[in-house]
């Protein structure tokens, strides 16, 4: 019984977030800390790239130092097959996905919350429609849909990310829906209704803000990881960012031509960047999920 009481307190008490952190497992805490470091590095690099505070000119070729390894003089992370500084190009590669990814995540969360609230709070026909839409989107593999959209519109990265957002929204929507349906039965929502609070206040403040923000934050980090993978994959396939503008995907692709000669570094450096970033966003999301969501639902 004591457990039940604590859970009840957890979900409404403002201090619950802190106590959840303190009682979390070490692995989850390490995951979150690692994820936060990755987010910090990405944001700082994005700012550096946006203001062009870079160690080298990203397109300047040093023909004396082609495919230099890491820690070569003047080139901290070496150079690629045209003698361009890899570190500079890695920093600039963040431009390719950062803003489009944020935009996509924002749209996905907004649209997803809307769908979820519509299905969970309204129920009935709205729920049927949202479920149908969700199943419809789930039937189309994302990569295949992207190729279809690319064939039709020759879109830029922002359009691609909007399509990505539309395909992600139902996932978020279904999670929000589950949460809303659970909350609707709870006393504090019933009393809010009885007190005559407006539906907008109940939905935005008491449901979405107080009770879904952890879930939405977690979905945002997972969405960001997927955005990175999508952008790099499309750039690898030649449909995203084009040379000479760097993207981690087209850097791997360009470097791969020299891989068979044993020159690993030019395509491995961006791959490592992808691994650390994707891992960071995933671990952040899963760590937060274990700490703030999973315990409550038990």
């Amino acid at each position, binding site marked *: 019984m004591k457990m039940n009481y604590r859970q009840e307190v957890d979900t409404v008490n403002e201090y619950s977030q802190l106590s959840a952190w303190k009682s979390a497992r070490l692995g989850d805490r390490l995951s979150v800390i690692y994820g936060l470091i990755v987010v910090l590095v990405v944001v700082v690099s994005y700012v550096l790239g946006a203001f062009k505070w870079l160690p080298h000119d990203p397109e300047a070729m040093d023909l004396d130092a082609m495919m230099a390894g890491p820690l070569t003089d003047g080139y901290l992370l070496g150079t690629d097959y045209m003698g361009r500084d890899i570190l500079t190009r890695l920093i600039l590669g963040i431009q390719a996905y950062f803003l489009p990814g944020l935009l996509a995540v924002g749209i996905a969360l907004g649209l997803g919350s809307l769908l979820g609230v519509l299905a969970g709070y309204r129920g009935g026909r709205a729920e049927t429609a949202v479920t149908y839409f969700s199943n419809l989107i*789930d039937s189309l593999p994302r990569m295949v849909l992207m190729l279809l959209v690319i064939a*039709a519109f020759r879109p830029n990265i922002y359009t691609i990310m909007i399509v990505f957002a539309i395909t992600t929204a139902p996932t978020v929507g279904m999670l929000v829906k589950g949460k809303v349906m659970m909350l609707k039965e709870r006393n504090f929502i019933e009393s809010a209704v009885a007190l005559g609070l407006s539906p907008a206040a109940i939905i935005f403040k008491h449901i979405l803000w107080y009770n879904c923000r952890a879930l939405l934050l977690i979905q945002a980090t997972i969405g960001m990881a997927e955005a990175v993978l999508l952008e790099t994959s499309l750039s690898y396939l030649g449909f995203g960012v084009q040379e000479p503008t760097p993207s981690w995907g087209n850097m791997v692709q360009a470097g791969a031509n020299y891989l068979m000669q044993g020159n690993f570094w030019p395509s491995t450096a961006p791959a490592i960047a*992808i691994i650390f970033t*994707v891992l960071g966003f995933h671990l952040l999301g899963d760590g937060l999920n274990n700490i703030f969501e999973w315990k409550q639902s038990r």
Partner: protein
Amino acid sequence: MKRFAWGSVAKVLWQELAATAALLLGVSLVVFVILYLAPGDPFAALLGGRSLSGAERDAAFEALGIPKTWYGQYLAWVGNVLHGDFGISTRSGQPVTAELLSGGANTLFLTLGSLVVTLGVAIPMAAYAAIRPTSWFARSSTVLVYVVSALPTFWLGYMLIYFFTRKLGLFPILSGTDESQEHSWLYALLPVFLLGLGNGALSEIVRYLREEIARVMGEEYVRTARAKGASLWRHAYKEALLLPVSQIIAAKMPFVLGGAIIVEQVFNWPGLGRVAWQAAQDRDYPVIMAITLLAAIVVRLGSFLHRTVYVAVNPRASHQ
């Protein structure tokens, strides 16, 4: 004791079949509308960029028997597709259906093989970790699987090619050449393993399976079975293995199909992923439409399979 309740299965499956048909109809509409809204006119492209005036165009459409309204065109297309006719590729001039059949077999081999690899790795790992959650193996496998899931498929593919062809000299460099080379069948295993392990969903799958197995192992009927010394496998395999595995196949089918596009690109694998990539490159509408529909059908089939297993294992689901 009846193992599976087939009677109630049939009833639910009819409903599922209807839902699947409704979804596929929706998918076809989405596919058609996207391409209908696309800028540029395939008809003009056919005439080498020369655009026709309204009257000439109408006359040409009339002569070729092409419906003028968008819904007329949509219905004509769906009608043809239902007869197995996906039209003619604007790039090669060949019927799309023939192209789908040859590439489809290769992609099917790749995707189904990779599912076998994924499950073959994930099930034992998850089962062991569920039974011994504090062992070093359980802990280190969690970390390992996370890292594997973050590896970009395309880069991992190049690494595999390098190590297996250059360092170990096991496989020929090129696939799909006419002359049959020694070990060439082995080469087919490389993309299958790459897609199976590097599709980015491995950690999610292992975690899901582990939680499901651990949950079922804590159920009271399992405890009873253990206490009286009955076969654990016979009592628990339905809920702990059959259900989660079919759930994973249904949920991860889109990922595997999407990953196949990349893997086929890395390995020059003559499958539908490469055909789709080429079609996107050339704006070959009939081909990309057909492949998108086909992918949706495969995804729905996976989901249908899961529902079948779910209802067969849990007959109560049919009385909703």
